[in-house]
Each structure stands twice: as C-alpha cells, then as structure tokens.
C-alpha cells in the first residue's frame, strides 16, 4: 500500500511517517518500477505500535530498541511507567505552586521566592533519586565487566565456542556479533567489545568436569554513563566490597549471622537490665511508701495531738510529699441558724464549754464515721472500741457537727473531689487561700436547710487534754461565721465522710492564733518521696520525737509514733536490686564476650584471605590502606547483621527501639575493638611466609 493509504489506515500524518522513516523506525520496501514506498502489513503493525508508544510519550530511541528487539516491550513499558510517575510528581508539585499563587492576596507575587522554592523542591526531590540511579548505573557497568556461564557441552573448538556464546546471547536477548573467533574469541554484546575464555571446572555436587565460559569487557569509555568522577570511585569501592562479600559469601553470611545473634542476645540482656532499672526508678510511684503519725501504742491514727515541731519537720523534709494534715473541731449551730435549719436542736448546746470526757466515753463514739484509710489496726481485739481514734468519740449532741481543717480533699474521703461541687467562682486553690469559708456535705446542708452561698454561723470548740487522767476536754473558741462555697455529695460516701464541714487548714491555724491557743494537728499522713532514703528520713523524724510504734505502750492521744507502710516496697526493692546487681555484675563479662567475638570472628574469617592481603602489601599497598579495606568490609557486614539483630530484638524482645539501637551502638563499639585487635594481629603476619608458601 502507498503512503496515502497508510495515512488513512493508521491516522498518522504523512510528515510523521517520513520522520519515523528517517529515524530508522520504519523501512518500507520500494516499488521496483517507480521506487514509490510500498508498505507491507508488517509495516502497518510497526507503525501502529510506534503510534501507541508515542501516545505513551516513550522516547523514539527506546521505541527503536523495542522494534529492533533489543529492549523487550514489557521492560520498555516498565521504564516508561517509572518516567511517567516521576513526571506525575513534578506535575503535582507544579499544581501545588499554582494553587499557592492563586491564594496570594496581592496581585503581584515574589517571583524570586517562588523560583527559589521551586528550584529547592526540584533539587531535593531528585538528588537521592540521582544518587540511586548513578549507583545502579555504576553497579551495572561493573557487573558487565566480567561474567561467566556454564555450558552443557564441552567446548573443544572455536566453532563450538562461538555457538555457545550465540546461544547464551540469544537467551539473554543481547545483540551478539563475533569479531574474531578462536581460543580467546572477541565479540560484541549490544555493541560493547568482549573477550572470552573457557575453563574446565569440577562440579561441586557431581564432581564431574564442566565447562565454564568467562567473558570480560574491555574498559570502554562508551559504556560509561555520565557519573561524577568521585562518585563513580566511591560507588566502585562499594561495589567492590559487595563483590568481595559475595565472593566470600559463606564467610560473609556467617559474619552477619554471628553479629545478628550477638545483638539479639545483647538486646534481651540489656533490655532486661534497662527494664529492671526503670522498674526500680518507678518503684516509689508504683509502690508508694506512706507513713502515718500515730499514738505510741499504734491504736490511733487521728484525733491526736500532733505537735508543731513534728509538723515543721515533716513540711521541711525534702524526702516527704503528699502531706495530708487535718485538725478537728466541734461546731454548734448558733440560734439564728437553728430556725432556718435544725429545729430539733437540743439544749445540748448548753454543753458548749468544757466537757469532760473519759476514755470510757470514747467507746460510745464508734458510730462516728471515719475514712477507710484511717482504720486502725487493733492491737487488742477485745477492745475494738478503742480503734476509733476520733476525738469526738463522745456522744454527739443534736446540734453538734464535726469540723475538719484539711489541706487535701483526700482527707475527707478518697475521691471526694469527684463529688464536690464548687459555688460559682470557687475552686480548691481559692478555697485553700481563704478563711471564713467552708465546704459541707449535702446531708448536713439539707438537714440544716442550707445551700452553697449561704452563711453558716456556729460556735466552736476544740479538744484539749484533760488535766486529770487520760481523758479529753473541750474548750470553747470564738464563734465563727463562714460562707459555704462548696457541697460534697455525700449520700454515697456515707460513713466514710470524716466530718460534716470542712475548712482550709490555714484558716484553722488562724483560728487558734486568734484564740491564742496552741495548735495541734489531729492527724498527719504523708508519702515518702524518695524511699531509697528511708532510713535517713526515719532518723530525721526521730528528732521531733517520732519513734516507731510499740504495741502495748500506754494509751494516750499524743501523736508521737510513726507507722511506715514500707514492707512491700522494701521487699520489691530488694528483689529488683538483687536482679539489677546480678545483671550488672555480668555486664563486663557480656561486653568482654562481644569484644572476643569481634576478635575471633574476623580472625577466623580472614585466615583464608591471607594471600589477598599479602599480595596487596607486597605490591606496596600501605598497611593502613589494606587494613582499612578489610576492616570496612568486615564492619559493614557486622553493622548490617547487628542492625537486623536490633530490629529483631526490638520486635520480639523486652526493649524499646531506642534501647535496641543503643545496644547496636554498644555492640559496634565492642565489636570494633575486637575486630581492630584481630586485624592488628592479622597485619602482623609474615607476608613473605604467606607468599612463599602458598
């Protein structure tokens, strides 16, 4: 068919068909008579293929290779796909720049700034890709320098040699041309010159002789693509190390595996150590050591008289935190409020003043609610009533209510904060700093017809030691008017409520000052901040007179003893300390083993490479350079194996990824030491002996 028919059939213009012809993509036959082009069906197929590939934006050079059969279509499609994806990224970046320009508020834009950003994007996006491409290029060049393959038949003649080469080239889809046949034939593969030779080797498995053809490429500048000179040298170095590793692959795998296993073991070992240390450090948080001031017999933990010296020591000690201090008072509703609230107030008010209480009275006070944490371990079960340490163990009178000075809401009952509703503008912080304010339980408020925001007027009493005997007396303080700034929903708290009305501890202290009375705290609890210094703290607390609880001591209300809840902590700490010291004790040996493996592994692996090292030295390569080459190769494998071990250890081990990498670093340091020693020993060998006796 002629050009016009071709044009109609393929939809490609006459000019383009001619252009493809000029580029060598198409070679139509010529009519014998008029020399007009005569396109065959095969030409139509080729032209359609060209059109299809051009529509995929494939360069003509590659289309030509596809048509020539030197580049398989699938491979060309894969290459083009990569190129298109690169373009797609560039177009996406360009679209984003356009969008940014559209978003600019002013009409004019900063062209330089945009240009800089775009250049930076183009540069940063392509640098890595270019490095990878360059390496692939250099690696491919190096790979093609020498390659070999085995033949099925023995190669005895030049013709047979050529036949085997052609067969191999056909299988590899390489364009083969014989230049000079012979024992060492010269030929070209895809236009690059090679020479070949054949050797007979013994098959490792069958022990039968087999023929191997080794081909070597001439150092042809044509095959070298554009790669920076220094970069090429570095990549060639890396490639050579890779080839060496491959050549000694059994030893290389062994090296990598040993490194990997060493790091896995190290990760498990050091991971345990780090974990145990972490647990030890977190022990004070996990198992807090709490202490409670008690009476000497250890039967009371509240309703005590705790002296100011004890409080000063506790508040100033650096080893103590989370201090819970309470001060207990008794309130009586004054007449004005009674009308509004409790009409059932009785004349018990009259009891305001000093009432004498005896220890026998205390027994009746067992119904007083106490917070669970303050339960006392009864020394004598026959006298359970004494376990209630409340100073208000007397028979409560109808208008009486308990007032508690607090510095922590937990003193009321645990999680009290969740049930507390503050009046507008109030919070725990502002409450603590104020005086003449209180929070009260809802039962109390309902019972007295009060609500947050109301004022509560009451007369006050505090406890003092009886002048005679071991009993307690009450002493009147100035009346008090307080604003109710919060309500505690105590319906669920019930008996665990320590008191009906709560005041800031600072306000209670001030009350004592104003009434010119000596202040005593009723209860004191705290947590030991640094339990590792427990003994030091106990010693400090002896100064103001706090001694350990001695069961059976005379009952009294003096807060003079200290109960430390430290048994569990001490046991846990001792256990962990033992584990840590055991692990730490072995650490030097473990590291020594790593150093030794770093020595032994290269020492054994390098034995088979003495000849290589010796000849390098004999030719005048400095010891430093030889060592560096061997060392780099060995450490590269160790680092890779170690990294794999670190990843495995982090995935299956007890340590986090950071610890795993830290272990990898430690391993590399130790292994480097060992390997350096091994190489130093290796370098001391007699080169002459190796070269002479090999």
């Amino acid at each position, binding site marked *: 068919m002629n050009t016009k028919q071709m044009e109609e059939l393929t939809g490609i213009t006459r000019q383009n068909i001619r252009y493809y012809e000029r580029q060598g993509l198409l070679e139509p036959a010529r009519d014998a008579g008029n020399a007009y082009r005569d396109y065959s069906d095969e030409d139509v197929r080729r032209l359609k293929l060209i059109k299809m590939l051009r529509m995929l934006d494939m360069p003509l050079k590659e289309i030509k290779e596809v048509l020539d059969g030197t580049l398989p279509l699938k491979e060309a499609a894969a290459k083009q796909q990569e190129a298109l994806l690169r373009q797609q990224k560039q177009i996406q970046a360009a679209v984003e720049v356009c969008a940014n320009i559209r978003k600019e508020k002013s009409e004019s834009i900063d062209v330089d700034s945009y240009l800089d950003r775009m250049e930076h994007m183009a540069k940063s996006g392509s640098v890595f890709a270019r490095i990878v491409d360059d390496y692939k290029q250099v690696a491919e060049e190096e790979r093609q320098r020498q390659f070999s393959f085995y033949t099925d038949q023995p190669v005895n003649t030049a013709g047979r040699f050529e036949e085997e080469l052609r067969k191999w080239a056909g299988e590899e889809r390489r364009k083969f041309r014989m230049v000079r046949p012979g024992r*060492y034939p010269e030929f070209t593969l895809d236009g690059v010159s090679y020479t070949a030779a054949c050797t007979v080797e013994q098959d490792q498995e069958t022990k039968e002789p087999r023929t191997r053809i080794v081909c070597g490429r001439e150092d042809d500048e044509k095959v070298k693509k554009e790669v920076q000179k220094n970069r090429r040298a570095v990549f060639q170095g890396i490639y050579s190390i890779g080839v060496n590793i491959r050549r000694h692959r059994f030893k290389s795998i062994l090296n990598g595996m040993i490194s990997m296993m060493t790091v896995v073991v190290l990760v498990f070992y050091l991971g345990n150590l780090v974990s145990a240390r972490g647990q030890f450090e977190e022990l004070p948080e996990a198992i807090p050591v709490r202490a409670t001031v008690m009476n000497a017999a250890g039967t009371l933990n509240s309703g005590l008289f705790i002296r100011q010296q004890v409080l000063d020591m506790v508040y100033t000690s650096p080893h103590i935190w989370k201090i819970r201090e309470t001060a207990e008072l008794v309130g009586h509703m004054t007449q004005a409020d009674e009308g509004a609230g409790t009409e059932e107030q009785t004349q018990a008010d009259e009891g305001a003043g000093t009432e004498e209480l005896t220890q026998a009275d205390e027994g009746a006070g067992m119904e007083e609610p106490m917070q669970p944490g303050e339960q006392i371990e009864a020394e004598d079960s026959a006298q359970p009533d004494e376990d209630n340490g409340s100073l208000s163990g007397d028979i409560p009178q109808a208008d009486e209510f308990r007032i508690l000075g607090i510095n922590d809401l937990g003193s009321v009952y645990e999680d009290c904060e969740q049930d507390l509703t503050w009046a507008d503008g109030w919070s725990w912080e502002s409450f603590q700093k104020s005086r003449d304010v209180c929070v009260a339980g809802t039962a109390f408020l309902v019972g007295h017809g009060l609500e947050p925001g109301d004022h509560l007027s009451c007369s006050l009493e505090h406890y003092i030691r009886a002048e005679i005997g071991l009993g307690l007396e009450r002493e009147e303080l100035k009346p008090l008017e307080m604003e109710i700034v919060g309500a505690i929903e105590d319906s669920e708290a019930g008996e665990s409520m320590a008191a009906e009305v709560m005041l800031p501890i600072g306000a209670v202290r001030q009350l004592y000052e104003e009434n010119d009375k000596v202040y005593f705290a009723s209860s004191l609890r705290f947590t030991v901040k640094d339990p590792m210094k427990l003994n030091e703290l106990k010693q400090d607390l002896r100064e103001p007179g706090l001694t350990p609880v001695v069961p059976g001591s005379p009952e009294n209300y003096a807060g003079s003893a200290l109960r430390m809840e430290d048994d569990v902590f001490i046991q846990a700490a001792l256990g962990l300390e033992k584990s840590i010291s055991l692990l730490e004790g072995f650490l030097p040996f473990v590291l020594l083993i790593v150093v030794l493996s770093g020595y032994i592994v290269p020492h054994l692996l390098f034995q088979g490479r003495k000849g290589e090292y010796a000849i390098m030295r*004999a030719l005048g390569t400095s010891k430093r350079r030889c060592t560096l080459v061997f060392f780099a190769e060995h450490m590269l494998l160790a680092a890779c194996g170690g990294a794999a071990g670190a990843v495995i250890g982090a995935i299956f081990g007890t340590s986090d990824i950071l610890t795993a990498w830290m272990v990898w670093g430690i391993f590399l340091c130790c292994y480097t030491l060992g390997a350096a020693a091994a190489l130093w020993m290796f370098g001391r060998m*007699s080169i002459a002996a190796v*070269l002479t006796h090999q």
Partner: protein
Amino acid sequence: MEKIRVENVSYSYQNQYQKIEAVKEVSCSFEAGNMYAITGESGSGKSTFLSLLAGLDRPESGTILVEGENLLEMDRDAYRRKQISVVYQAFHLFPLLNAVENVMYPMELQGISRREARKQAEDCLREVGLGEKIFHQYPKMMSGGEQQRVAIARAMAAQGRILLADEPTGNLDSENEAHIVELLGKLAHERDYLVIVVTHNPEVARQADVCLKMKDGRMV
C-alpha cells in the same frame, strides 16, 4: 653498577617449636644488568633472604644498602611500590582484575593517572610477549605461563629496575619455563634490570649470569 649491597645480614624467626636462624651473616652485592640465581636446598634460607631484599622482613643485624641507601631507614612500603618488585611461584594475581588492571595496580598506587597507567600496562604486557587478546582476560581465563608473564609485567610496572623472583617457574611446564627464564634474562641484559631468582632448578641457575648457593643460612 652496584645496585644492592648486603653486609653481615642475619635473620631468625621463631616457629612453633624453636628459633630458626634462617640467614646467618650473609654479605654479598648485586649489580644491575645481571641475572643472579640463588640456589640451595629447601630450608637453606634462600626465600627468606629474598624477603629481606624485598623489604618484607627486617634483618636482625647487618645492613642492606639499596643504591647506597640503608633499607632499614627507608619507607619500606614506598620501597616496594617504587624500587623493587617480586614475582612468586603462585603468581598472586588479583582474581577480580583483568590482565591490564593487574599490571595497572602498582602504577595506580604510585599515583599515575589511570589513562597513563593503562597505556604503560599495555606496553608492559606487550613487552612480556602477551598479545591484546590477553589484555582483558581475567586470571582464571589464562594459562600458568600467561599468568606468570602478567605477574612479570606487573613487576616491570613498578619501574624500580630490581626484580626478585621466587621460584618463578615452579608451577610451569618446561616450555613456559624456558620462556620465563628467557624473559628474565632479557630484562637484565637489555633493560638493565637487576634480576635475582631464587630457584632449586639447575636449568634456571645455569642460565643466570651469577649463581650463588646458600646452605644453612650462609652464602657458600
């Protein structure tokens, strides 16, 4: 012209069981343009003596003067790179480098540009009688004789004009042996090399200009 002078050189080494005095107070001199053969029985110290001359071992006592300069005071790596080269029985070519690259190796160590080194390497290979077809072949592709020629070409590339050979024909057949000996003789007589060959082969020794014999570490 005297190239190497050896004065009262002794050397001993400790093997697994005992101290071996390999070289005992050897004194001799070697002149350029000659081919020397050192013969002797196994264990007579001839290979050790060659290693001392190559700067691979350090004598315990005595001095080795190379062109008037004390070898012990020289940078021995540089000495091996620039002044002396050794050829071994086992060839010791780099298996991953082809013939030209093997010969280029010492030149590259000397800092000669790759292009120039290639040119010189090809000249050296031609000089030892190897054609272009060998240039790009790898050691595995060559016969023993060809490998030894490449090793000699590599030794020539050092351009130090001192060539030491330790049993260079030990692994070769008689035809190749004759070629190699002839080549070494040529280097000495036509290129003014100092060639010292350690051999136990009387045929090789016969073709040397001077034949020295060692026995029990002494030159006799």
